[in-house]
């Protein structure tokens, strides 16, 4: 739409130039903004990540099967995980923005068979939670981190899942309801500093086409069916920026927001699935780290001897079922009930209390994941250099040198890592307490009532902090990987 049409639409005179009220809008920065708003802007990033994914599949299936020598395992389990946690902390949901798994969906959409809607009972986060459980269980059982071959098949599984779901359903259910990576990113992007928002609310009020959600003639609308004028959260936002490209008024901004704005304001929906997802992800973080220290082997031995469980898969199912499903369920439902009893206000439904205080687990979980993923990235972030040297040499290319320099590995000195891990967990804990307090203080509630209401949640967070620090204080140990999951 040209400028004249825009002015007429807004009812201004010929000299009325559009002035965005948003202080800083990344979509209007000189070079980056133009690239992001360009019709193929996202594709540039997706193609880069697609190339990385193709490398993961190719090297994983054909390359050396020692994990530290193969780009599939190094990129997937060191760099991808380090990258997403830092990107979420510093910017936002950048992985979903550049997600390569959605590229074959464009083909699938053209081949769409039935065009049916995703079943109503599944329009929640329970499928994502099941997917997270499955992938973390497989990760431990099959030692995915030690197997380039299996890691490649995980990437293939993502491509196939996304492609098939897009072909069978009219909307894009994979991102919103299925993808475990997306669920992780959605949850922790609620703590991210960037958010999509309208530049001028009045423009949206008078908009007829609602192209941001309906799409325009050339650009699709929001794939996860979010409506920009009512957007108050990063939850379910893939940062695809289709809304910004589709808006004929250039009224969509990607702008910074106040730290913890989303977590401290009363915008979280009261939903059991969402509350459970946030709390469970914190426990996934603990169990994922617990799987890498010595006591887990003592537990396996005890379960084998005392319970007669000879199968590694069954023992892990039991451990993970307890740590990642039963305990989070107890925390969410028990915490809400105890909160209700402690506050002395029985009129408050437990669901509302769970929805009110579950966001405090976002910074707590973030701290734990940052400590864990940050550890591997700090220790082996540069390991990708000799891996790529070796990969290129295997293909007769010596651009990066005649020999792989296997000594390259650390990004940070070893002695910095543990203090940084402790710092990440403690900052997560104190920010979580702050979020609890901010959410407890509201009209109609006395400070004493609010304090009693948050007490059960604060105690759980304290316990999580102590357990996490104890785990990170233990020396790492990874056993049982020989001849498992390796071709």
């Amino acid at each position, binding site marked *: 739409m040209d400028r004249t049409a825009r002015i007429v639409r807004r009812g201004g005179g010929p000299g009325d130039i559009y002035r965005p009220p948003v202080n800083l809008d990344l979509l209007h920065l000189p070079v980056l903004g133009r690239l992001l708003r360009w019709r193929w802007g996202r594709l540039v990033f997706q193609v880069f990540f697609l190339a990385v994914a193709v490398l993961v599949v190719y090297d994983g299936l054909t390359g050396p099967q020692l994990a530290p020598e193969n780009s599939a395992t190094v990129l997937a389990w060191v760099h991808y995980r380090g990258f997403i946690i830092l990107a979420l902390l510093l910017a936002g949901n950048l992985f979903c923005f550049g997600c390569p798994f959605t590229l074959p969906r464009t083909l699938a959409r053209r081949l769409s*068979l039935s065009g049916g809607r995703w079943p109503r009972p599944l329009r929640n986060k329970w499928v994502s939670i099941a997917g997270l459980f499955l992938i973390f269980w497989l990760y431990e059982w099959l030692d995915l981190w030690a197997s380039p071959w299996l890691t490649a098949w995980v990437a293939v599984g993502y491509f196939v899942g996304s492609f098939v779901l897009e072909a069978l359903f009219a909307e894009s259910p994979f991102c919103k309801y299925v993808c475990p990576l997306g669920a992780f990113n959605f949850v922790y992007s609620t703590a991210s500093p960037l958010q999509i928002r309208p530049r001028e609310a009045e423009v949206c009020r008078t908009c007829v086409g609602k192209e941001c959600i309906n799409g325009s003639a050339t650009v699709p609308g929001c794939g996860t069916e979010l409506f920009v004028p009512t957007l108050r959260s990063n939850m379910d936002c893939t940062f695809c920026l289709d809304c910004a490209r589709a808006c004929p008024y250039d009224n969509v901004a990607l702008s910074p927001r106040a730290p913890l704005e989303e977590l401290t304001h009363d915008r979280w929906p009261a939903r059991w699935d969402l509350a459970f997802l946030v709390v469970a992800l914190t426990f996934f973080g603990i169990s994922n780290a617990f799987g890498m220290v010595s006591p887990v082997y003592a537990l396996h031995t005890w379960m084998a001897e005392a319970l007669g469980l000879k199968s590694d898969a069954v023992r892990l199912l039991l451990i993970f079922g307890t740590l990642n499903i039963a305990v989070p369920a107890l925390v969410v439902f028990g915490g809400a009930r105890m909160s209700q009893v402690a506050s002395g206000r029985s009129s408050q439904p437990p669901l509302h209390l769970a929805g009110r205080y579950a966001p405090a687990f976002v910074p707590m979980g973030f701290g734990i994941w940052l400590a864990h993923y940050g550890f591997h990235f700090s220790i082996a972030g540069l390991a990708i250099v000799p891996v790529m040297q070796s990969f290129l040499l295997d293909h007769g290319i010596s651009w990066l040198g005649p020999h792989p320099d296997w000594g390259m590995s650390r990004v940070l000195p070893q002695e910095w890592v543990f203090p940084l891990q402790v710092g990440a967990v403690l900052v997560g804990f104190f920010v979580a307490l702050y979020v609890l307090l901010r959410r407890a203080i509201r009209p109609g509630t006395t400070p004493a009532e609010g304090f009693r209401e948050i007490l059960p949640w604060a105690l759980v967070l304290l316990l999580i902090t102590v357990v996490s620090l104890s785990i990170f204080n233990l020396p790492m140990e990874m056993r049982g990987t020989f001849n498992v999951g390796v071709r």
Partner: protein
Amino acid sequence: MSRNPLRTADRTRTDRRRSFLACFAGFIVALTLLAGGCTRRTTTTDQAPDLRLDIVELRPDPPAVGQATLLLRLGDPEGRPIEGAAMSLRGDMTHAGMAAVLEDAEEVGEGLYRVWFEWTMAGDWAITVSGTLEDGRTIRRELQVSVPSGGG
């Protein structure tokens, strides 16, 4: 003569289904071929597979976190010692995300080579012993060692 729109729609739908199945089948076939048929040649290929590289001693035994020594004997197929090789050791955890241990071996005579290194953590290790012979050929052997924690 006008075309029957219902029949055209059915045909389009059938075409789409065929295209979908063709794409999907092609993708799976390509992957299966890649997964099953290809193993890349690597630059680290052993150029002297006929030579013997035996572990004489690995201390401490059983392995434990901390300092360790590995004594190797390099010999020809008949067992005669080979001297003058530049040997080194690389220790990796079997998973990505940890720093490798790199040490050069010291030649102690009669085809024996000793390496001092450190098991930096408990767990499963992939030890790669590699070297260059005086004639320029490279040799590479791998072994797997599980280092238990103090508690076993």
